[in-house]
């Protein structure tokens, strides 16, 4: 027996490590709690629109706010890429505060729910960040990964052609787990594709008029503070509505560009859902310094306050396109920008298509109001 004692000790130590690792791993499988909003009509699931998702980590809740007054439908997608934190936080802030008075608003806070269950440790990404609320309580959010968890979908194929015709090969082969490369999806395809099909089928089934897919990008990216818009070949209405939004933002002293979807952006929501459904597809990006390769120490401060001196220096040296603010670009500003973009798009849509009016109050006021309140005031206490 004595000769086995060391074997047993090593096994026990390994088991202790395994238990802690498992707790850490499983912690990311728990969705963030969302505070009650009396205006919420119902919660549906994406598997209602794509059967193959039922019971998987890619099935995700859809928060429905139906005014009961006839009108159009606005679909808001947060967390397509879970590491682009402003999207899911803005979606959750809307869910907790919105009051719809005409038409419907449907909000998905964790579009790639599987992506929230893991992270990118080799990129120095952390698992969670926490926000202290005004009442002293804390809300914790997952950072996640832009791709579905390989535990849910593996292996990545060396060659795959999605429904849009996008060929995933070589360095892009891992994008088979990226929701925003696999639209318009396939009911019987790989799991990520089935989630894409769920969104596609939701838009078709519910006659969604307008969709916003919320994203963030590193400062090297060209299209920050920019909304991509799909143009149906037979009309220019979508760009007129987006222009209405941009002009409204300018009245709030916020710069916003609108650009047409790239003709070759196959598989991306604004291109492939726009081409294959009647919904006006939009995708907006804000600047997130924690996403770029030049970021320094990864911590809550970087994610929440968005202040990365390396990027400010890179901007001064002319190496990045984005006009990086010296004092950072805090998460609350990015969340406010997303929420305001959605509000102005709905306003513009209702102006141009009054018979499908979508009207709501975010109950969060103006951009300035939201920045002043901070995330501690925008988000509600779970207690």
């Amino acid at each position: 027996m004595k000769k086995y004692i060391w074997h047993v000790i090593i096994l026990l130590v390994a088991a202790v490590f395994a238990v802690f690792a498992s707790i850490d791993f499983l912690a990311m499988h728990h969705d963030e709690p969302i505070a009650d909003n009396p205006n919420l009509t119902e919660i549906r699931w994406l598997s209602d629109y794509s059967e193959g998702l039922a019971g998987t980590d890619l099935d995700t809740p859809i928060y429905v706010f139906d005014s009961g007054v006839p009108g159009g439908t606005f679909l808001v997608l947060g967390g397509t890429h879970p590491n682009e934190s402003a999207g899911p936080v803005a979606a959750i802030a809307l869910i907790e505060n919105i009051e719809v008075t005409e038409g419907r608003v449907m909000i998905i806070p964790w579009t790639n729910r599987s992506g929230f269950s893991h992270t990118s440790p080799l990129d120095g990404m952390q698992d969670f960040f926490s926000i202290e609320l005004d009442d002293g309580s804390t809300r914790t959010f997952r950072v996640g990964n832009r791709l579905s968890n390989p535990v849910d979908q593996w292996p990545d194929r060396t060659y795959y052609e999605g429904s849009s015709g996008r060929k995933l090969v070589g360095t892009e082969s891992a994008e088979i787990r990226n929701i925003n490369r696999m639209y318009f999806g396939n009911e019987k395809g790989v799991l990520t594709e089935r989630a894409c099909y769920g969104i596609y089928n939701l838009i078709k089934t519910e006659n969604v008029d307008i969709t916003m897919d919320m994203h963030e990008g590193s400062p090297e990216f060209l299209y920050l503070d920019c909304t991509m818009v799909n143009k149906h070949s037979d009309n220019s209405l979508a760009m007129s509505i987006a222009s209405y939004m941009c002009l409204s933002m300018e009245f709030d002293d916020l710069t916003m560009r609108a650009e047409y979807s790239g003709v070759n952006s196959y598989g991306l929501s604004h291109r492939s859902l726009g081409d294959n459904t009647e919904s006006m597809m939009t995708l907006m990006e804000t600047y997130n310094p924690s996403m770029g390769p030049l970021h320094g120490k990864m911590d809550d401060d970087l994610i929440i306050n968005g202040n990365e001196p390396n990027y400010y220096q890179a901007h001064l040296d002319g190496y990045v396109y984005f006009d990086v603010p010296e004092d950072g670009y805090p998460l609350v500003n990015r969340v406010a920008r997303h929420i305001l973009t959605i509000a102005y798009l709905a306003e513009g849509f209702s102006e141009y298509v009054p018979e499908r009016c979508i009207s709501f109050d975010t109950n969060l006021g103006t951009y300035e109001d939201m920045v002043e309140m901070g995330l501690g005031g925008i988000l509600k206490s779970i207690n």
Partner: protein
Amino acid sequence: MKKIALALIVLALVCTGLFADDYTSSKGTNDSEFDPNKTVEFVQETTSKNRIVTKGTVDKSLYSQPIFITSFGQSTEGAMLETVMKRCKLNYTYSPTATADKISGVKTLVIAVGASTKGLGAAGISIDDELARAKAIMDVVKKENITVICVHIGGSARRGQISDVLTDMVLEESSYLVLKEDANFDYKFTKYASEHNLPVSLIYGTKDCIDVFKSLYN
């Protein structure tokens, strides 16, 4: 033998340097007087406090409704201009890809100039087709003496070669020029306006277009 090889290598390097020099200068301009160190100092006249600067006198009697808006270059500024008209509550028709026959009979034509490869791609129009459409429209403008307002609100980002070709076509027939001032970094627009006695309104931001058109149409 080694010395000859070394001499050839040195010669090759010198030649490379010479060709590289030639290549660099040929990339810039054909103008023999071009001096890369000589830059035009740009002093912006509009500010966040003084948002609109108008030079020259605008004859408001020239401009009537309904207004026809089109785009030269298929940039997003066409749609932005349409939104401006909507906010001004003006009577307008917006057709970014309007053909020359649609322009015939129009009283006031507002053209949003600025080329966008994304916009052209989305509209399924080649650059050559867009240039041909623009030329056909300007032919009708000349023939029917249509009043034209040239609007350039894309800023410096819409000052590429194609944008400038389209702008030049419109400027020739314009009676009024409205532009976001950062597009005037080389004074192209104000210089042309001054030489041709053309009124020009420099604006600080796109939203200032609203005040310009509200003022134009009272």
